[in-house]
């Protein structure tokens, strides 16, 4: 007899392939193989499309045919996260308890508290977990610890939190070794592969701003002797667009990719260095254009735009602290502001010289 106080995730979600009967009613079963539809969805959000509505119903799911003794893994209701977890569980019988993080990944949601003690406690209760399993262990991803206080969860639900590995790919080894995590499983890293996969969304975030800057440069490029000339605007357009493109490429592609190898610890300085390389390239490319001030403006913009873009990569990175970023911003933002004023001044003056 299904328990009316228990809320269950929808069985009609496209990735659900069946259901398993429990004392609380039918629990949706999900496969460990991703379909082309799952992959396409993941690909889209990596480019920033519909990223904040890529959610699944929170609650209890089943992988394989779990029993009352099967482990319970806790995760977030961002579908990319859920898919990453379930694809590591081939051939296993496991329960997955999905918390409502409004489609945000575990670590970010934990920082906010939506992947937190209160949500975990209420989800354990609303899923009727104590009626489904006979043990009292919840495997919570380690990065959820920013929001989940394990001792409180125990006091309020009776369930003991075992901190799982940082990465879902380590789940099989973790589960096979009596739920013991090695120091490697506990350590957050930021290898090239992880940085590269973040580049599209990073660039997409500032694409509109970059396009606006480029458009602004093209439109104002006509200002000069005789007030305005469309011919002059068109003539200077390539330089203005090059400055904007150099800034976005240096700040959101080159800097993240080369992060450990660009000198200096402050991201904004790393970005400025990459931007400087972009500025040099622009000046080489337009060497014969005979527009020194316009080139200087594009170069200055490449440096400060890249610096700003790289500074925003602090939030995407895995090792920056609040007080470190505050210090960095205090030190560099006045220079970014001066550079912005300088770039605009040089660009306008470039209409004359």
């Amino acid at each position: 007899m299904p328990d009316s106080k228990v809320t269950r995730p929808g069985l009609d979600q496209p990735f659900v392939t069946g259901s398993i009967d429990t004392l609380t009613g039918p629990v949706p079963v999900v496969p460990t193989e991703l379909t082309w539809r799952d992959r396409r969805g993941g690909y889209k959000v990596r480019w920033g499309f519909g990223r904040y509505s890529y959610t699944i119903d929170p609650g209890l799911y089943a992988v394989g045919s779990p029993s009352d003794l099967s482990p319970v893994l806790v995760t977030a209701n961002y579908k990319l996260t859920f898919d990453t977890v379930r694809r590591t569980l081939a051939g296993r019988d496991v329960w997955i308890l999905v918390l409502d993080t409004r489609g945000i990944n575990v670590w970010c949601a934990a920082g906010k508290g939506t992947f937190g003690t209160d949500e975990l406690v209420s989800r354990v209760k609303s899923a009727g977990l104590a009626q489904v399993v006979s043990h009292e262990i919840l495997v919570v991803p380690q990065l959820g610890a920013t929001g989940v206080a394990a001792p409180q969860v125990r006091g309020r639900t009776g369930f003991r939190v075992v901190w799982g590995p940082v990465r879902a790919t380590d789940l099989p080894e973790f589960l096979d070794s009596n739920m013991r995590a090695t120091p490697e499983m506990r350590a957050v890293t930021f290898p090239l592969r992880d940085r590269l996969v973040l580049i599209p969304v990073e660039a997409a975030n500032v694409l509109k701003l970059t396009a606006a800057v480029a458009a602004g440069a093209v439109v104002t490029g006509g200002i000069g002797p005789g007030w305005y000339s469309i011919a002059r605007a068109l003539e200077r357009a390539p330089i203005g667009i090059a400055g904007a493109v150099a800034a976005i490429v240096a700040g959101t592609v080159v800097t993240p990719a080369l992060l450990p190898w660009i000198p200096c610890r402050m991201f904004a300085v790393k970005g400025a260095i990459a931007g400087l390389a972009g500025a040099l390239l622009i000046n080489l490319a337009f060497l014969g254009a005979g527009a020194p001030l316009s080139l200087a403006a594009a170069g200055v913009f490449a440096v400060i735009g890249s610096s700003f873009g790289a500074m925003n990569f602090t939030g995407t990175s895995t090792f920056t602290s609040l007080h470190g970023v505050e210090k960095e911003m205090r030190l560099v933002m006045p220079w970014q502001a001066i550079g912005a004023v300088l770039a605009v001044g040089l660009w306008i003056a470039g209409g004359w010289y």
Partner: protein
Amino acid sequence: MAGLRYLEDVITLQFDVDKCTGCQLCTQVCPHGVFVMGGNRAKVVDRGACMECGACALNCVFGAIEVQSGVGCAAAIIASYFRRGGEVSCGPGDTADAGSCGSSSGGCC
């Protein structure tokens, strides 16, 4: 994490070894190996790697750890300039105390 270390002199982490009971939770939740067990108590071995996420302090019921936690995210800090209370955090943009991440604005999560 070779080559990937951040500004270390402003970290706010404080550890009071006298209050530590050796429960090991901090050594399990820290993503950067700041704590290890030294005998039957924890000890700080890499304070400069701390990213002030607050996981250790939240999970220490004995109050041995203090850190002014928050997210090391420039976009979230900029967003906090425009918000009453000025809390620096991630999270869905449609909540009242939105961070930089979420449906109503761009962000990084």
